[in-house]
């Protein structure tokens, strides 16, 4: 300790810097606990059984339809985005030649797409899926919009996962006379799988938390929707409740459920990522 003090005396700037970094850490952690604590204290007392009834009405303000809609939304959006993103990444890493113009274009577009605010996806989805394709405000229009939104995320993470697979495995496989398809599916994909999965789980997190892109595409009807019917996800449900101002307590309760879902997803993602780094050793 005294040695440390002597160092700081000799270099006062390093003491200052060390304090600044520590303050930053404390503030960050405090903000996290403040938000989580606030949501839980505000929400948990209102988590009543009536909130989980099948039908929504103004009496119970049930979030059950929203929960189911959320699952539907995640399922459909992933069904579209995951294969598209994964195959696109496989093309980029395994098939495309370096310096290929197309690759540059795909990189540019995915990077641009990932930087666009979600409300713009919402507007595009509204103009294209809702109006032009005449799907109206519907689950499918919302899911398609979200699929486009998370596509760059999935492509990027899959690309990284594929690149992290050592080239010597590919050489070994080709050297034994295996073709490209077999090499990719039997040798490259299995070790890359956990990286791909953690990317997909992050995408799920974004879908679950999204509101702006859904208001104009999936609408806000509080029923369990069919493919071409409007429905609201949990995040949207919460937004609408607090917007109406009549069910603030129920909105807080919804926030708890939403928060828990997202925290669980993140935990799952880091668990999968940890497994990945272990696998590399």
């Amino acid at each position: 300790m005294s040695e440390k003090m002597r160092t700081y005396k000799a270099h006062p700037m390093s003491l200052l810097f060390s304090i600044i970094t520590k303050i930053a850490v404390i503030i960050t952690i405090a903000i996290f606990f403040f938000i989580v604590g606030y949501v839980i204290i505000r929400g948990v007392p209102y988590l009543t059984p009536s909130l989980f009834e099948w039908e929504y009405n103004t009496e119970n303000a049930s979030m059950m339809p929203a929960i189911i809609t959320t699952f539907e939304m995640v399922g459909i959006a992933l069904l579209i985005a995951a294969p598209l993103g994964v195959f696109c990444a496989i093309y980029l890493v395994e098939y495309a030649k370096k310096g290929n113009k197309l690759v540059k274009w795909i990189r540019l577009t995915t990077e641009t797409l990932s930087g666009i605010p979600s409300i713009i996806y919402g507007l595009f989805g509204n103009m294209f899926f809702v109006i032009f394709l005449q799907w109206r405000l519907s689950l499918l229009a919302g899911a398609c919009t979200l699929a486009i939104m998370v596509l760059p995320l999935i492509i990027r993470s899959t690309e990284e996962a594929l690149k992290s697979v050592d080239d010597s495995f590919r050489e070994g496989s080709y050297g034994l006379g295996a073709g490209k398809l077999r090499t990719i599916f039997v040798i490259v994909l299995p070790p890359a799988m956990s990286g791909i999965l953690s990317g997909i789980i992050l995408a799920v997190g974004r879908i679950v938390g999204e509101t702006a892109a859904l208001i104009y595409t999936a609408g806000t009807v509080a029923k369990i929707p069919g493919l071409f019917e409007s429905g609201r996800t949990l995040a949207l449900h919460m937004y609408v409740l607090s917007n109406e101002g009549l069910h603030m307590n129920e909105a807080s309760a919804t926030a708890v459920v939403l928060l828990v879902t997202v925290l669980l997803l993140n935990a799952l993602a880091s668990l999968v990522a940890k497994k990945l780094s272990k696998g590399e050793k």
Partner: protein
Amino acid sequence: MAIKFDIKNADLFYGDFQALKNINLEIRDKEITAFIGPSGCGKSTLLKSLNRMNDLIEGCKITGSFKLDGVDIYKDIEITELRKRVGMVFQKPNLFPMSIYDNIAYGPRTHGIKKKAQLDEIVETSLRQASIWDECKDRLKKSALGTSGGQQQRLCIARALAVKPEIILMDEPTSALDPISTIKIEELCQQIKNDYTIVIVTHNMQQATRISDKTAFFLHGEIVEFDTTEKIFSAPSEQRTLDYITGRFG
């Protein structure tokens, strides 16, 4: 002995850089041919062009003729068929992250062998040929990456043998290994040379004298001298060969 590989007027370019210049070489059946020379002299490059691994490198252009049993490997043979006949062992052991059994069975499965009994037999024979059966027969189902570096390299050789190749290319197979593992690999080469043609790239000149029948000395992308190993190391006809083997450069 019959000629296995017949290479004539071969040039190889990586983009603008010419890595091989007018190579002419005959590799004979059931012999061990060693490629020696300083780093960047083209010996690995020539080795890789024998099973077309250079195809994976962009901007690589090859001219001249490479004939295997009289058939041009760049024109008249399917690449997967070529690589089945011409196996390869790499500088660093590159076993797949799967069990020992699955590693050895990967090649045969690739070429359509599905029956378990048949695969079992191939796995055992290959591991025995690579003299590693006794060390790993009790853990065939365990991850291959749990073995030592020397064992991994012998497993790589077993994996290459499992597709029943005619020729085995070895790209500095012992450069990442300790002396004892190196000796084991060299003994292994001696054991299997009655059944296979082996081409080995090595930095280690003692290794070349210990195991090879013929030696080719490479410099700046050219073959300076190619002769029996005995002749190369006792009475080379080129001054540059003499300078290299006596350690004056390289």
